[in-house]
């Protein structure tokens, strides 16, 4: 297990290195640089040159990369060009904001969708199954940014129950923080239900058809024992992988939901820093997202045997 983990981490190193180099190169291919953005229309050649010099942008690209990389290895991701804040604390702070929303949505969605998917599979082709599949396909088809807008329109503007936009951190006022989180979490939650329910149903169907379930039933075990002990545990394994994948994907894709509800999360930070050509922040965000992605997948793989006894046996 430990060896597996170490190998996996070592295997991730080249991936992360490629991400780092690619991000660095790509963002510098994009026209426009932070110095000219800071000066705007006022940029005359001398002030542009001196600002570029101060920001270290006048050095050759490989040198810039080497400096950044060396610092990054010692945990220093530099400072934001626009706000002068240290990048790593900034990225971590914004990450927690996003993570709260994503985790809440995924946990609630799993709690609802996994049992629902199992029930649908258990009563395959019943009216209930048809209804559940229809609902999940429908939810899956609604883009999160539109769902968000609709919720905003209905609960925010029409009914006036929930605050429209903004964010309050938990440390400032937990109650209000919750109010502000309801709609973004609900948006992601509804979307993820669609994905997860289909997955759970499919895995459960697969398992229910296997011999040992028939065997268990034939032994005269009660239906609830069969479902819980035998079917559920085994059917959960692929779903678990999907939950992991979803966490990783959501971090990249959450920018849209954060835009709809103006949440100061990691996705918004990335998009805003792309617009501002804030190179250190872009690089920091991307590296961080890649690391999280690798870690989440690693944890998923390490925990997989817990849900799928077949893997441990091997």
């Amino acid at each position, binding site marked *: 297990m430990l060896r597996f983990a170490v190998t996996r981490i070592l295997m991730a190193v080249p*991936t992360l290195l490629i991400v780092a180099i690619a991000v660095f190169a790509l963002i510098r*291919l*994009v026209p426009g640089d932070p110095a000219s953005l800071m000066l705007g229309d006022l940029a005359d050649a001398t002030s542009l040159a001196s600002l570029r010099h101060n920001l270290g942008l006048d050095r050759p690209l490989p040198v810039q990369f080497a400096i950044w990389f060396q610092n990054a290895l010692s945990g220093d991701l530099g400072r934001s060009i626009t706000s002068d804040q240290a990048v790593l604390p900034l990225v971590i702070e914004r990450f927690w904001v996003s993570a709260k929303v994503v985790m809440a949505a995924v946990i609630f969605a799993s709690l609802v969708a996994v049992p629902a998917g199992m029930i649908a599979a258990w009563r395959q082709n019943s009216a209930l199954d048809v209804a559940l599949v229809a609902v999940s396909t429908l939810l899956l088809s*609604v883009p999160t940014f539109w769902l968000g807008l609709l919720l905003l329109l209905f609960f925010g503007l029409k009914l006036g129950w929930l605050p429209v936009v903004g964010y309050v951190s938990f440390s400032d006022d937990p109650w209000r923080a919750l109010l502000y989180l309801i709609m973004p979490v609900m948006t992601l939650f509804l979307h993820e239900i669609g994905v997860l329910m289909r997955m759970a149903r499919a895995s459960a169907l697969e398992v229910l058809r296997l011999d040992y379930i028939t065997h268990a039933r034939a032994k005269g075990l009660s239906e609830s024992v069969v479902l819980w002990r035998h079917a559920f545990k085994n059917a959960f394994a692929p779903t678990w992988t999907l939950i992991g994948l979803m966490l990783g994907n959501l971090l*990249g894709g959450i920018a849209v939901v954060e835009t709809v509800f103006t949440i100061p999360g990691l996705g918004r930070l*990335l998009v805003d820093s*792309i617009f501002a050509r804030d190179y250190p922040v872009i690089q920091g965000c991307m590296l961080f997202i890649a690391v999280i992605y690798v870690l989440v997948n690693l944890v998923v793989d390490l925990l997989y045997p817990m849900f799928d006894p077949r893997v441990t046996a091997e």
Partner: protein
Amino acid sequence: MSYSAPNALIGGTTIGVVAVAALIGAVWTPYDPLAIDFMARLAPPGGAHWLGTDEFGRDVLSRLMAGASTSAWISLLTVILAVGAGTALGVFTGFVRGWVDRVLMTFNDALLAFPGILLALGLLAVFGANKYGIIFALGIAYTPSVARVVRGTVLSLREREFVEASRVMGNSEIYTMWRHILPNCIAPLTVLATSLFGWVLLAESALSFLGLGVPPPAPTWGNMLAASRAFIAQAAWLGIFPGLCISLTLLGINLLGDAVRDRLDPRMRGV
């Protein structure tokens, strides 16, 4: 299976309607989708403009139709690009294996750990902000997932008896690949391409929504939705109709995708 027939019917009909609207939208729309009419600003649905007008007095229905053809065109070309490149890469790496495979797959994984937004913006800026830039950006972004699926299929196929047999019979690797492996990839590829079409449509809308997609004034469903945000309290229809179009199209694709999957690969049903 049991839903296959209604799935195919509902999905097919929805996609058919969208396709027809896109085809018509490419040549004819009730109004010029770009013509502004400042007197008819933010007119609600009904009357001369069935689905209302936007903040410049442009006809929403005409823009939706024109947007449909843009979105359909982008999604189609992107899927072709991603499937083409991904298949080539997947078959190649799955077949040669060894260090070439390892290097290419490391790159592949790096791309997979790379949120599409940045890749898209970077490539868009390099290639120019237009629909071909988006096609390129999204095509490259989705190639790795295709490559993974194809490589997996190839790896499992090459251990099978008929591939072994072809080799034993003295056929060249390339012939074996072409004759025996590629045809067997078609089923999973068709399934994948169907869902890919949906993903691309969604990604294009999301990018436009963030302001990184097809630039206005040319309408796409995504940038119409993005522009509607500022008027959500005054003119809700500006956001409702394009979102409805995206959702219905995705629903059609998902239903059709399920039907195709059931048909081609019963084991992948419902996944």
